[in-house]
């Protein structure tokens, strides 16, 4: 639903200026983020950058302070 609003907000101006490349990027990113958000709402575990950083710093490099 929100996606439709987003498309309504963004696309006309881009179409008017004929920015096809930008429209493509916009739809790609929008699809990707909506997918992630949808999976999160449905209760899937989303790979979390913070846990990744924690793993790298704490367990691989052992550089953390505490």
């Amino acid at each position, binding site marked *: 639903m*929100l996606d439709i609003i*987003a498309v309504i*907000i*963004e696309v006309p*101006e*881009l179409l008017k*200026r004929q*920015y096809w*490349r*930008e*429209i493509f*990027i*916009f739809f790609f*990113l*929008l699809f*990707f*983020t*909506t997918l*992630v*958000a949808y999976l*999160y709402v449905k209760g899937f575990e*989303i790979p*979390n*950058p*913070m846990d990744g*950083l*924690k793993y*790298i*710093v*704490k367990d691989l*490099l052992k*550089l*953390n*302070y*505490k």
Partner: protein
Amino acid sequence: MFLGAIYVMRLEKGIISSTQLVYLIFGLITGSILTVTYSFGITKQNTWIVIITGFVVTAVFTTVYLGLMKPFPGKNLVEINDIVYGNFLGRVISCIYISGFFMIVPYNLRFVADFMVESLFPETPVVVFALVFVLLGMWAVREGLEVIARVSPIISVVTIMVVFSLIIFIIKDMNITNLLPLYNLTFKKLVQGTHIIFAIPFGEIQILLFIAPYVKEQKKVKKSMFLGLLFGMIIVLIVIIRNIVVLGVLLDNQVSATYQVATLINVGETITKVEVLVGMVLLFTLFLKVCIFYYAIVLGIATILKMRTYKPIIIPYGVISLTLSMSLYEASIDGGYFGANIYPISAIPVQVILPVLTLIIIWLRRFPKEKS
């Protein structure tokens, strides 16, 4: 080169003045007043020392960041990387920078939402505040840099007024002996505290590499950057000393010490419940901070992709930062641990190594000469 210049002109038409840059930096730094809490657990009553050392370190690195900007007036960080490292490697390094900044917006969203839920609206779900905040951020970024810059003086003035009025209200509860014992700070704790202060409030001045190119008077950038940093530092220092002097030993088990101080205020049974003011100021300054980061990241991604306008990225980035902010961690205590122990280390490549490396390469290849 010439094409690049056209891209910039189309990406951001707005021009801000150097005074607005001062206010922007001020808002950026005071936005983190509550996150300074992370170092309370480590350095306790000596946190103010750490703030000063952190400021000195940041001043050194600010000169590094300014050195990056100086040979390339009007170019933002991504374009500088493109010129210095060449097209492909420059993109890769810009991607590292962006990924370093990427998590700051979700993190701040979660921080402000957690704060609101814990202190002011205990029954409301966390996601509501984050959603409202990110929607406002989207709107502000869509309107462009000039709007964000124009709102910053108001926010700064309100912040200063609230900080000083809180001091006046609480002056009877102050106890100077809370600052003692003074020198029980071990070297390791000093280093960690300084690093936290450098990484979280002060080092984030690096994001100004995306905004400073659009300042009208390029020669005043240096002065206004240091001025903003200094004012921000002074306000943070005042707030920290006030918190220490009022709360004392209680300090290290508070989630947000500033808020706790405000709840203690009771002037003749009339002036009470001023903690709402703290919440308001936090909202204002964090809003400015989120806007600056949001804008810079969106602009950075748009420059990497060589887009002609940054607007298409705004909504996707808002959605993904909302999702990430909700799945970051279970409780705000985890966030405190991450901010104190993990984040400063993980920010080293972006905040220290890459800028210094770039500066060395700029020096070796003598860029200003080549350009002329």
